[in-house]
């Protein structure tokens, strides 16, 4: 009896868990962003940026923001490790692509990596948040300038946003995440993933 009520309660009030992939080239600031997200939304101190070591694997952050449960998957950006990115695409609701806006020499690499991500069929319809990171540095370019530089042609009908942020002091992050949650809630992909998850559960039974 109790489990019946509990099931009903869960069915009515449980929030969907959104999986968000944080991608970007080496040294873009992905893990710093993740730590900043943890410190903003969990009220705990994240790791200070000077103690972050290059990621060679997966870092996970679970936070609640704008009334949604978010699971961030932060993957390493070194060239050899990019092959594992696509293994996570199928289950991701959205993509956060981080670019070091203060380092124009990395833009070419970022552009080709991002184009490759967007071409992948497993990510069809996933909202895309492109972050021009490191705005705390004086030489950082604005998000408009970055958008002009990247000149992405494969966006099509995808929901996307360019946003200037700083993972160091937290500028712009809250707004970007609010947009992301809203975009995921509206996206058809979320519905599709939910149906697939239900089918998977039913299959298990």
């Amino acid at each position, binding site marked *: 009896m109790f489990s019946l009520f509990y099931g009903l309660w869960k069915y009515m009030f449980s929030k969907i868990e959104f999986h968000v992939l944080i991608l970007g080239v080496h040294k873009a600031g992905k893990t710093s962003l993740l730590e900043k997200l943890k410190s903003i939304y969990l009220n705990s101190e994240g790791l200070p940026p000077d103690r972050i070591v290059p990621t*060679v*694997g997966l870092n996970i952050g679970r936070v609640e923001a704008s009334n949604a449960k978010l699971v961030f998957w932060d993957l390493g950006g070194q060239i050899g490790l990019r092959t594992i990115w696509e293994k996570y695409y199928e289950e991701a609701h959205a993509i956060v692509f981080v670019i070091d806006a203060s380092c124009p020499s990395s833009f070419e690499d970022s552009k080709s990596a991002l184009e490759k991500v967007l071409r992948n069929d497993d990510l069809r319809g996933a909202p895309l948040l492109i972050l021009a990171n490191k705005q705390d540095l004086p030489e950082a370019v604005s998000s408009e300038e970055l958008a002009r530089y990247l000149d992405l042609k494969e966006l099509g009908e995808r929901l996307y946003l360019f946003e200037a942020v700083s993972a160091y002091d937290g500028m712009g992050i809250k707004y970007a995440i609010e947009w992301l949650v809203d975009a995921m809630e509206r996206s058809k992909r979320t519905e599709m993933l939910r149906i697939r998850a239900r089918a998977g559960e039913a299959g298990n039974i």
Partner: protein
Amino acid sequence: MGILFTRMLSSIFGNREARILVLGLDNAGKTTILYRLQMGEVVSTIPTIGFNVETVQYNNIKLQVWDLGGQTSIRPYWRCYFPNTQAIIYVVDSSDTDRLVIAKEEFHAILEEDELKGSVVLVYANKQDLPGALDDAAITEALELHKIKNRQWAIFKTSAIKGEGLFEGLDWYRTATPIYPSSCEKALMAMILIGAYLTLGFLALAVRLHVVFIAGSGDRGVREVSYFI
């Protein structure tokens, strides 16, 4: 109570202890890694039957590192050591390409264990000094690390003989699992401090009242006191 205080102090000063299991097939280099971490030198080892356990002090973490024998016949006993484990170091012989499939199967079997659900996973792609050793990306692929979606993991290229990569892994472990006093512990700490403060206050008050009482009771009090002396 004592345990609580120890935990609080260690969370303030950043000292901590962790229990780490070193697992992997036989001849992957687990024992060499253990003693390289502990003594900083290469020892000649024989196949481990049973286990080796050593305490490794690294910066401010004290690691209790368990190196369990990796031969097929004793792998079933690994599970006896699973409870209360904070991290698993899974060691792979990167040059032993024939047995990577077995290494993968054992690895995913370990990940399924309930008692290890909360532990982070470090993979050491060991024996990088040997010719023909696969690099970290290839080992990632071979072990199917991407199937891990609910816990943190990292892979490091190591060479136990040359001592490369081992401490980088421990650095990652330290940053991947920072401990801060939980809000519950903070509240308890505050309560204990307030409690101590109030007790002292009451004691002080009581002493003063007592003095006033004696002084206020006039001659009799004085007489009693002098009598007492």
